[in-house]
């Protein structure tokens, strides 16, 4: 890697980093949308068959867990890209 020309490599790296940040920004938006889905569920007042609490719990906690996993994964990627930037950047 060291014998490669430095600059194009860095540009590519910082480009990747920007896109990574974009992704990190989108995670809460995705979470908000997924957690807004229960707004669409029928309630007993609507008459039609409503959603069982156990299903609701499973859905909400699955979303939660997925967000945590995504967050952890992106946090790891961010950390790595930070380290690379510090290592090769200056």
């Amino acid at each position, binding site marked *: 890697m060291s014998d490669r020309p430095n600059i194009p490599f860095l540009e590519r790296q910082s480009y990747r980093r920007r896109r990574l*940040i974009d992704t*990190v*920004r989108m*995670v*809460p*938006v995705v*979470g*908000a949308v997924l*957690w*807004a889905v*229960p*707004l669409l*569920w*029928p*309630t*007993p*007042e609507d008459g039609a068959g*409503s*959603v*069982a*609490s*156990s*299903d*609701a*719990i499973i859905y*909400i*906690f699955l979303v*939660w*867990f997925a*967000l*945590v*996993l*995504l*967050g*952890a994964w992106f*946090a790891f990627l*961010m*950390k790595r890209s*930070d380290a690379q930037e510090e290592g090769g950047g200056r």
Partner: protein
Amino acid sequence: MGALNILVGVCLIYVAFLFAVAFGAERAALNGKGGWLRSPLIYTLSLSIYCTAWTFYGAVGYAARSGLEYLTIYIGPSLVVIGWWWLLRKLVRIGRSQRITSIADLISSRYGKSNMLAVGVTILAVVGTTPYIALQLQSVTVSFGVFSDAYGAELTEINHGNNALLVACGLALFTIVFGTRNLDANERHHGVVMAIAVEAIVKLFALLAVGAFVVWGVAGGVSDIFERIDASKIGQWDMRGDRWATLIFLSAAAFLCLPRMFQVMVVENEDEDHLRTASWAFPLYLMVMSLFVVPIAVVGLDMMPPGANPDFFVLTVPLATGNDGLAMLSFLGGFSSATSMVIVAALALSTMVSNHIVMPIWLSAQSGGATVSGDVRHVVLLSRRISIAAVVFLGYLYFRLSGGGAALASIGLISFAGVAQFLPVLIGGIFWRGATRTGAFVGLSVGFLIWAYTLLLPSFGTGTLIGTAVLTEGPFGLGWLRPQAFFGITGMDPLVHAIFWSMLLNTLSFFIASLVGFPSPLERLQGAQFVNVFEHSRTPQSWSGSLAQSEDLMVMAQRIIGAREAQRLFEREARRQGLSGLVPEPSPDFLAVLERELAGSVGAATAHAMIGQIVGGASVSVEDLMAVADETAQMMEYSSRLEAKSEEQARTARQLRQANEKLTQISEQKDAFLSQVSHELRTPMTSIRAFSEILRDSDRLSAKEKVRYSSIIHDEAIRLTRLLDDLLDLSVLENGQVSLNEQTGVLGDVLDHALSSALTGNQTVELRVMRDLLSEKVTLTTDLDRLSQVFINLIGNAQKYCDAPTPKLHISVQYGQGQLVIDFIDNGSGISKADQAVIFEKFARTGEQKVSGAGLGLAICREIMTRLGGSVDYLPGQGGAAFRVILPQSAALAAQ
């Protein structure tokens, strides 16, 4: 009774353990061994003070009453933390670069270091937090009561109150000991943070233990518990959409604005990178915390008698099944939740109260201001300690007065809604440079008034602080102002109603007032600093001082941050400036650093004021800088105006020089002419005199000679007369005394006449004239005699001066653009550029004199043409001498 004693004993041991943990952490940090204290894990765990006793006990009760609604309280913060890149990162960076000590400090610092705003925010934060502290005290005493009930011990009301008082005193003591140990410049409390991290683990572990016991001990595993959930009264999704969305928003807002959350999240933050770990670890913590809430609630509903308080299922379920150890662990979990919240809340609030209310009052009460010798640190610490005690006592008072009746969750939500009013000002402050102090004032006031009116007052119960009539009819019978149905919109959930209107009107008034007003220079600078914190993380520099003041600054700094720290700081700064001693120059850089250090102890507004007091007269306020900038702009404008003026003067000088040159030339011409005219007059006069003398004196003249001599005299006299006529003619023309004799004729005829007049006489070389007769058929109405005179002159000149072997004169006539243009162009060598400028002057004659003439002809021509309303000019670039005569349209009205 024995078990109760054990409980008390365990509690005491636990408290002692917490003291030890905090003490150990402080010691480790002091010895520089506290690396592990600053780990992302500790940071994440410290964030868990979001989960108070309200979570630990209240969530189960909440779930038992309203199903899955309790999840909103944890979903909101999860989203905020997962979206750390949007907001938290910026908040933390601002907090670190500006040495922010509290949310009041942040808001006041952003809006021009306004202490008024800080006081307002502090008061509102105290109002919003006091019920919450009361809630924690209540939870501890009630849970204790649950235990004592289970063991049949009789606890009277007084005992209840005593318990609460005891707990309050213990918490205040802990907070004072570990929260105000030192006046650290960066306001971090390792002991407190470590203790609450430990408590975070305890409460998580306790809740998980109870949950696991309920799922696998009481119920028959996961599938069984799901069946039980679906069969219970909360077995169906029954959630109003508006509440779901509003509560998620509310909890997210409160997470950002709660003073205690701000304390752990921003003030106690050691490293921005910790946020990255917290971004997923904290949502995980919240998820695990809320995982077993519904199972516990459902099992509790199954097991307990119908009247049992669901808020304490976490305790009563283990107790009812005889698991005393588990119940005790659960009690410790609840105790941890309550105590950690009270400790951090008291710490955060006391910082605000002390920095923004007590210290400014104390400073202004001191006659000598900040320069009085003596340690101010003890004053700051004392005011902190008293503030802590006061805040906790206020919570206790609220608990005693309210009687602890209302359901836990509702107090929590009301408190959330109160502090959420900071959100527009906070977000606006760090993302919008146009946000102003006035806007912040107006927005906060509107938000809090609406919150108090629509939510806080009705929460005390109808008929206590707000009358039944007001609730149903509106104040003074104004129906559209009913606290729970603004503008007559009924049917909204009261909480949703209050949050909707307070946030909407808060944001709107904040926005509009910001748009209308004009911020002060300091506000604008701070605004730029906050909004663009990632571009430049420096404070605005606004000080300048003299060396004499460095000692005063030293005195003051010692009093606030301690003698050793102050000396170290001064020495470091002096070294940085390249000085050997202890006292650095009070350069703007140093003053900015000092102000930031002091801000860490007493808040930005106070630090700014204190430095201002000392540097005093020499302080360069931002207003001054702006004034200087204005002056500079004025000077620049003035100098550019001067420049323009000097340019103008240079132009005038140039014109004057030209005029002078011309005048000199004219004067030379005049002198030349005078000698010429005297010569012209003298020559004929001499010959007249000589020949008349001959005629008089000699008698032997033949008749032929007499005739010859007298005809010479005659000719010379005619020449004299003509010269005098010309001079007279010119002076008449110049004086404007000429009367024009208008006639109508054809241009061609005038030219014919002029040619025949000019070309008579015995010329050696004949001038060939070329004309275009057709174009000359223009009828003119002007003084034809004068015009003819001009033509004669021009043709005569051509004849006289054209030096070509076969001289030719081209006469062309054009009619256009309202002008009649007649060009006289010969094929000679023309007139030199220098001469072109003067040929129309009187007495001017070009080059060497070949031909006699007084040089008046062209001057007369020009005068005539001016009288006729036209002009005559030299026309350069035609291959020979060329003159252009222009007659105005009026003269050629009858053309063609």
